[in-house]
C-alpha cells in the first residue's frame, strides 16, 4: 500500500463525520455506540500507520474499556432518572439531558 488509497480516504472522511454525530447527535445512547465504532475505526488508522502496538492499546482500552464504562454510566443515569421522569421511550426521548430538552 503505497501512497493514499481508498482505505485511507474512507477512514479520513468517515472519522470526522462520526465524531460530529457523536458530539451533536440527538440521542445520548446513539452517541455512545457511535463512539465505540469511532474507537474501532481509529484502531484501523493506527494499523495503517504501522503502529500495531498503539492499535492494540486503542482497541483494548480506548474502545473496549471506555465503551463499557460509558454504557455503565448511561445505565446508572437512567436508573436514577433523568430528572423529570420523561423517559418513556428509553434512550430516545429522555436521553438528551432530562430537564434540558433543548440539548
Amino acid at each position, binding site marked *: 500500500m503505497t*501512497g493514499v488509497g481508498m482505505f485511507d480516504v474512507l477512514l479520513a472522511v468517515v472519522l470526522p463525520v462520526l465524531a460530529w454525530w457523536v458530539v451533536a447527535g440527538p440521542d445520548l445512547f446513539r452517541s455512545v455506540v457511535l463512539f465505540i465504532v469511532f474507537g474501532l475505526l481509529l484502531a484501523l488508522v493506527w494499523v495503517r500507520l504501522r503502529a500495531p502496538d498503539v492499535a492494540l492499546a486503542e482497541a483494548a482500552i480506548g474502545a473496549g*474499556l471506555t465503551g463499557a464504562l460509558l454504557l455503565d*454510566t448511561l445505565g446508572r443515569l437512567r436508573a436514577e432518572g433523568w430528572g423529570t421522569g420523561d423517559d418513556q421511550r428509553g434512550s430516545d426521548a429522555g436521553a438528551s439531558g432530562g430537564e434540558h430538552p433543548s440539548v
Partner: protein
Amino acid sequence: MNAAVLYTLMGVGLFSIGLHGFLAQPHLLRKVLALNIMGSGVFAVLMATAWRGPQLPPDPVPHALVLTGIVVAVSATAFALALLRRIHTATGRASLPEDTAA
C-alpha cells in the same frame, strides 16, 4: 497528498469538532465524549508526524507518547465519569449550573 498530510488534516478536524462539542454541549457525558474525541485528534496528528513513508519504519517516540496518552485518557475518562455520577446523585441533573442557567 501522502498519508501523513491526510491524517494530520483528519486529526485537526477531529480536534476542532471535539472542541466545539466540549464548549457547546451542556450534558456532561457528551462533554466527556467530546474530550475523548479531542484527544484522538491530537493522537492522530502525533501519529502522522511519526510516519516516514511506506519504506522506512515509523518513528517510535511519538508512538510511545500516544500509547501513554491513551492510557491517561482512559483513566481521566473514568475519573470524569465518577465525578459525573456524583454530580448526578447530588443535584439530580447531569450538567453544570452555568450551562443550565442559560
